[in-house]
């Protein structure tokens, strides 16, 4: 037996965060970035994704099931930690607590986001196009809700990428972990730009 159930769960949690969820996140932000080229470009990119073959299989196995496992097990991990930032205010300890905090924020954000887009579209309450997102994001409350949600998600992914490299024993030496910190900061800045730029596009137009 390769470790206990707890071992397999934790390994799976770490893997799913990057493959497929992290890859999906980057793909999702990239497709949405078409909005910066105007409503037509966004609509055609979104409709291409919408018309992929065996779409439900892709959605269930690449997005929903991994996301469900990662979030449920993640909530358990988040609530077994006990913050001691007051005594140990080190950089990595801050990242440790922020990872748990942004995990919860991201879960709330994604739950709402999926409800308002994918589920609403699925029930036929809404149609997938530029106007749907424009309608949501021109409301100042939801604009800031999305800004916080997107930045929380990109942080959780970037810092999670750092932990992924440690958890799988790729970055063992302190030096490689340090360089991975810089890489994860660069990833955070880059994908946050892509996400926030898209939100601004929907809210304030071209």
């Amino acid at each position, binding site marked *: 037996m390769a470790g206990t159930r*707890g071992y397999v769960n934790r390994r799976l949690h770490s893997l799913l965060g990057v493959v497929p969820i992290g890859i999906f996140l980057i793909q999702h932000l990239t497709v949405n970035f078409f909005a910066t080229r105007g409503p037509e470009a966004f609509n055609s990119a979104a409709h291409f994704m919408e018309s992929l073959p065996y779409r439900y299989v892709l959605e269930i196995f690449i997005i929903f099931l991994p996301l469900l496992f990662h979030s449920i097990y993640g909530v358990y991990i988040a609530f*077994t930690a006990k913050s001691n930032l007051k005594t140990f205010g080190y950089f990595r300890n801050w990242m*440790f607590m922020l990872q748990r905090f942004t995990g919860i924020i991201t879960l709330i954000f994604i739950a709402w986001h999926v409800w308002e887009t994918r589920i609403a579209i699925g029930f036929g309450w809404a149609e997938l196009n530029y106007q749907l997102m424009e309608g949501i994001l021109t409301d100042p409350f939801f604009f800031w809700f999305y800004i916080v949600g997107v930045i929380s998600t990109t942080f959780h992914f970037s810092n999670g990428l750092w932990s992924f490299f440690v958890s799988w024993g790729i970055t063992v030496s302190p030096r490689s972990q340090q360089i991975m910190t810089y890489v994860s900061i660069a990833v955070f800045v880059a994908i946050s730009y892509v996400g926030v730029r898209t939100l601004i596009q929907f809210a304030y137009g071209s």
Partner: protein
Amino acid sequence: MSEDKTITFIVTRQDDPESQPFEETFEIPYRKNMNVISALMEIRRNPVNAEGKATTPVYWDMGCLEEVCGACSMVINGSPRQSCTALVDQLEQPIRLAPMTTFPVNRDLAVDRSRMFDSLKKVKAWVPIDGTHDLGPGPKMPESKRQWAYELSKCMTCGVCLEACPNVNSKSDFIGPAPLSQVRLFNSHPTGSMNKSERLQTIMDEEGLMGCGNAQNCVESCPKGIPLTTSIAALNRDTAIESFKSFFGSDQRV
């Protein structure tokens, strides 16, 4: 005059494992080059608190008095460390002493670190050599490996890394960084590595290696400067390989 100078200690005390903790303040005469232990000895010599009332002497654990046994760990001005190397001249006053919170308190500043010794037994933190006949000398260890393994062997089971870890708490069974690093130490030993898979399998659990959340407070706090997070990352690699070997099968597995 130095005789007039006093030092103030605020000690978190507890009469027995079940009773409620309380704080007691002591004023003791200053001497040059005092450490926290010599101050505690002064309180023991004359157990009178700052209000002038006679009290029981403060109880604490100690052994080597040179930071190699790990027995005298306590929380001094908020940080867990050994009281033998905590020099009074370098501490901000009043000096606050409290028992570590991760372990059950026996009395006053003395805690019960049994859980750490139980963990060492669980992970087989030794080299099994006893047999019915002389097995002869073991294989040699490369000098470069001996050098980093020696650093890991400095662990004195003091408990500071468990105290610093946000994942070692009442809500989790995580054994903490110290016993994990010992798995790497004994797996690096040429004879110890004959039980490598067994040790790795033992820590492949949420109580073991998977309990780590990479907050890395342990490596910042370790009084012996042990590269605990390097050990944990190295074990992450070893257990990943071990799980492939055990699941898919391998003749290289020991």
